[in-house]
C-alpha cells in the first residue's frame, strides 16, 4: 500500500513537505528508514494526527506526521 509521510521543520530539507512510500505492512520505523530519518531524531510521531508508536502497523489511507524536537510558544 502507499503511505503518505508528512515532514516538518528540518525534516523537509532535501525531502520536501511530504513523500509517498509504497510498502507492505508499513510501520513508522520502516518508513523513516526508507527516507533516511533516524528514530532518535524524531520528537513527535503522529498517525492520523494521533500519538503513534514506531512499531505500529499502518492501514490503508493512514498517514504519518513526524517532527524533530521543536516547539514552544
Amino acid at each position, binding site marked *: 500500500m502507499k503511505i503518505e509521510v508528512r515532514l516538518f521543520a528540518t525534516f523537509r530539507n532535501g525531502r520536501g513537505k511530504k513523500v509517498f512510500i509504497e510498502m507492505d505492512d508499513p510501520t513508522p520505523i520502516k518508513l523513516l528508514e526508507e527516507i533516511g530519518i533516524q528514530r532518535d531524531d524524531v*520528537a513527535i510521531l*503522529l498517525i492520523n494526527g494521533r500519538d503513534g508508536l514506531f512499531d505500529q502497523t499502518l492501514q490503508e489511507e493512514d498517514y504519518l*506526521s513526524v517532527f*524533530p524536537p*521543536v*516547539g*514552544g*510558544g
Partner: protein
Amino acid sequence: MELVNQAEGGNLMYGYNGKYLRINLKTKEVKVETLDLDIAKKFIGGRGLGTKFMMDEVSPKIDALSPENKLMVVTGPLTGTATPTGGRYMVVTKSPLTGTIASSNSGGFFGAELKFAGYDMVIFEEKSDEPVYISIQDDKVELKSAKHLWGKLVGEVTDELQSEYGAKSKVLTIGPAGEKLSKLAAIMNCKDRAAGRSGVGAVMGSKNLKAIVVKGSNKVGIKDPEALKVLFKDHVGKIRANGVTGEGLPTYGTAVLVNIINENGVYPFKNFQSAYDQNADDISGESMKEKYLVKNTACYRCPIACGRWCKVDGEEMAGPEYETLWAFGSDCGINDLKEVILANHWCNELGLDTISAGTTLAAAMELRELDLVKADEIDGEPLEFGNAKSIVEWTKKMAYREGFGDKLAEGSYRLTEMYGRPDLSMSVKKQELPAYDPRGIQGQGLQYATSNRGGCHVRGYLISPEILGLPEKLDKFALEGKAFWAKAFQDLTASIDSLGLCLFTSFALGADEYAEMVNAVCGTDHTGDSIFEAGERIWNIEKMFNLESGVAPSEDKLPKRLLEEEIPDGPSKGWVHKLDELLPEYYSLRGWTVGGIPTDERLDKLGLK
C-alpha cells in the same frame, strides 16, 4: 573595581538593588524607597512582588482605569545578571480587560537597564493632568512633558527618546491604542517586545503616562560570581543541547508550532468553529523562514534567540510569534502570510496585544457570518472570514477607535455581549484564549479555566507535556493526572516569572537549576521544592486579589462552545472539554474548598495570613 549597588546604610545587596521608585503622577513627587528584603525574598520579584504590593496598597475593587489603580514595573532578582535569559520584567496592575490582577511579562533589554539604573521596580500612582514621560538616568529621575510624543507610534517615540538620551538608552512606551484606552492595549519596549496581555497599556494611558526612558551605569551585585559563572556555562550547555531551545526555536521561532498544533488537530480555526486548518502550512514557521525571514533576534543574555526579523516588500520589521500567526491567520480563516506579518507589525507600532486583537477580529467575523452585525455597520473592508485585506485596516481602526473599531477596542467579550452573544467570545474571564483548542488538550483546558489572569497559555504551558513530550509525554485526551500537572506548571511558572527569566528556559531546565541560580546570585538557600512553594504562594495571593476584586470562582470556566460543541473534523474530531471532571481534583490539590476558594489553612501554610 566593580561598582555594585548598595542599599541605604551601605549594606551590600545581592540580586536586588534594595530600592525602588515611587512616582506620584499627580503631585509629580518622586521618591526612592527601600525594598523590604524579607518580603522580596518571600515573593521573589517580578510577578510575585508586584502582586504583593498591589494587595497591600490597592483595593482590588477599584476601577482599573481610575487614578486609584497603580502601575508597577517590576524586575526580578535575576534580571540584569549573567543568567541565561535574565533580562525580563513584569508589568503588574489591575486589568481593565478582566478585572483580575494583571501581570504581563516582557523581554528585550528594558528590564536589565532598569536594574542597572539602581531600581528593582517603579510604582506609578495617580494620574498626570497632561501627557508625561519619565527619564531615569541612575539617580537623576525626571518627569517631562510628553505632549510632543502623544499620538505617536511606538517606533517614533522610541527613536525620538533614544536620539535625546542616547542610542544605548532603553525605551518603554504605549502606542495610540493605550492612549485611547483600548482594553487590548499593550506596553511595548525596545520597539517590538510587548508586555502584551490584559490591557496593561490602557492603565498606562489612563495615567497620561506615555513612556519611560532608562539608562543605567551600575551592575547588579552577585553573591558568588565564580559559582554563577560555572552555572551559566552548565545551564547554557543544557539549553543548547535541548532540541527545542537549541535547534527548534532558534531555527523557526515559536512559529514552528503552526504545523505541530494543526497536525494534532487542536489548532483553532475560525473562532474555534473547528480545530484543523487545511491551509495552515501557508502561514507556518517553515513558510516564514522560506519567504520572509532575514535573521533571528535575541533578548538580553538569551542563548535561544527565538525572535524573527522579516523583510516584506523591501521593508524590514519584527516577525510574528506563533500566537499572532494563528490569531490573525487561521482564527480569522486567513492564510496570507504577508498580511499577517503586516498586522503584527501594526500591533507593535500601535501597541496592541496581538492575541486579543486578532481573536477579537475573529469574533467580529463570526458575528458578521451570523448577520448579527449588519454589513452597513462595517465602515470599511468587510470583516469576513478569509478576507486577508481586512486585518491591517481593522487593526488600525481598533487602535484609534474609529467607527466599528470603537467596539473592537473593547475586546471580544464586550463586543459579542453588545450583540447578545457573549458565548461567541472565546475567552476566559473576558481575556481571549490563545492558539490551542482545549477540547483536544484536556490539561491545557483546565489551566485556561483556572488561570488567574483569564485566557492564557503562559500561566502553565501544558502543551509541553501534552503535545511536545517535555519533560514527559502525556496523553492529551486523558484526564488522569492533569490536575497535578496543571498545578505544578502554574506554580513553577509563577516563580520563573518572578525571577526575571524567560519561560522557554524551562524546556531545558528545572526547579533545581532555578534554585541554583538564585542562590548564587542572592545568597539564598532555595531548593527545587522551595521554588515550587514560592510559586504556589504567588498563585494564591493572585487568587485572593481576584476574589476580593469580585471575580467569583464560578469564573473558572471555559466558553460554552468548548464544553458542548464537539470538534467537527480533523484528528480530534468528536472531543469536547471535560472541565467538570477535572476541577474538583484541582481544587483539592490546591488545598482550596470544593467551591474554589483558598482555605485559611493553606494560606497560613504559605505564609499569607
